[in-house]
């Protein structure tokens, strides 16, 4: 038997069908296919998706925290050092490094960098930038269908397709990887 690898995308009419199929994979109905390999495509995010796919990491908040911390430190130090190097202009009887105005500006910097770090980390972590896109994609995922993607080999290829069909898959797209 040749040692081919396949990628298949099964399109289901709704979350329930797709989830039942994944549940079967979870219950090891197809030996050799793990639920951790399952990738889901959907028009919206199902609120209880973790129940079926298990907890998968989303590290965005860590970057947010880092961005906020950076914003505070950098913001304040930037302002204070700019002021401390601009000694020629004391004004209105105010100190050279006036805390009340620096608090306001540092606050804005916190939010600005928090937002920037969040967004940039989102773009990378979600794979929108630099990540590999799914080669198999159906426009119907943008409308109302749910896609389940799996990478399979010769042993698991046929049983998985059978499983999908059992759960009333609407369409199966596949490609041979090698």
């Amino acid at each position, binding site marked *: 038997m040749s040692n081919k690898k396949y990628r298949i995308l099964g399109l289901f009419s709704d979350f329930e069908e797709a989830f039942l199929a994944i549940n079967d994979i979870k219950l090891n109905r197809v030996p050799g296919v793990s639920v951790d390999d399952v990738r889901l495509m959907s028009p919206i995010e199902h609120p209880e998706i973790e129940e079926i796919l298990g907890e998968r990491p989303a590290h965005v908040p860590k970057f947010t925290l880092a961005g906020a911390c950076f914003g505070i430190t950098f913001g304040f130090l930037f302002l204070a050092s700019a002021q*401390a190097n601009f000694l020629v202009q004391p004004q*209105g009887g105010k100190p050279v490094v006036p805390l009340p105005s620096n608090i306001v500006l540092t606050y804005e910097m916190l939010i600005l960098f928090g937002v920037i770090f969040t967004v940039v980390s989102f773009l990378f972590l979600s794979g929108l930038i630099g990540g590999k896109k799914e080669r198999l994609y159906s426009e119907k995922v943008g409308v109302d269908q749910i896609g389940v993607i799996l990478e399979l080999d010769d042993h698991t290829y046929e049983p998985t397709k059978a499983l999908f069909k059992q759960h009333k898959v609407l369409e199966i797209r596949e490609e041979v990887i090698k």
Partner: protein
Amino acid sequence: MSLNNILTNWSRYRKGAEEGGFHEYEHQWGMVVDLNKCIGCNACSVACYAENNLPVVGEARYAKSQFMSWMRIERYWDEPDLEPYQASPTANVDVWIETNPPAGKTALKPSMPGSYAEGLLEPGGQGFEERVGVFGTKGEMQDFGASFLPMMCQQCHAATCEPVCPVAATYHTPDGLNAQVYNRCIGSRYCSNNCPYRLRYFNFWSYYEDAWPEPLHMQLNPDLAVRDKGVMEKCTFCVQRIRVAKDEAKMENRKVRDGEFATACVQTCPTGALVFGDLQDPESRVSKLWRFHQVEQGKTKQNKQNKELRGYRILEGLNTDPSVMYLERVREV
């Protein structure tokens, strides 16, 4: 580098005016205006126009209050012991506000034509007499009873105009002056809005284009710039003269002597109502007058031993800490 700078100098950088501020003053130029001596001749104002290249804006722009008189004589009609001027029923009535501090003494009232107080409150209304003095009518000036208030930049030490400038175009010099850097100004005009004395003037137009038709441009003072549109300006205490005096003193290796020079207005005043000098020099005329009248800098309320003394600073209750002391006008009752 910067970080080190901040850490080592932190406590110095955190000093406000109350604790002496960040830098040492070399001078504190100040002035005394004796309202008893002011006769409202406007010579100071004219001198200022000549000295500081102030454009004459013409009637139309003057009427729009777009003029540039750094030194202006405000006129008030407020003789308290005179019979209130009979206001005709159709007249527009001016309104006074109590300015600090001729406390309990007089109420000031503007008389400038076009003053907005027109129609503010109807005369004869309830409580009108108490709150709003009825003194005269528009268009008909009284023959007598005017008070004059020469107003130039008060060179406040806690100037409200300074911290609001977005580009730091106005700042406090080691001479104790409130300086305006024309080149840095972007014309946000916040400083003028935040000046309680309204002593900052803005170049709404390129005034120079028609203010000095040839050969009048020959009269321009070469010691300072002619300002173009879009920058704020104000009385500088004739900073160009201060510069010259300081340079000469430095060359002769001495301190600037009191009375060695004066600003244009002081120099011109025919009655000697204005006195200019260094408040840091305890021997200067200005310092002596301040001391005599028991007016001190850095206070929002003067603690005078002798209540009869006439010295006061305008709106000092706002904690602007002005460098100009006014001497109240005394009248016979």
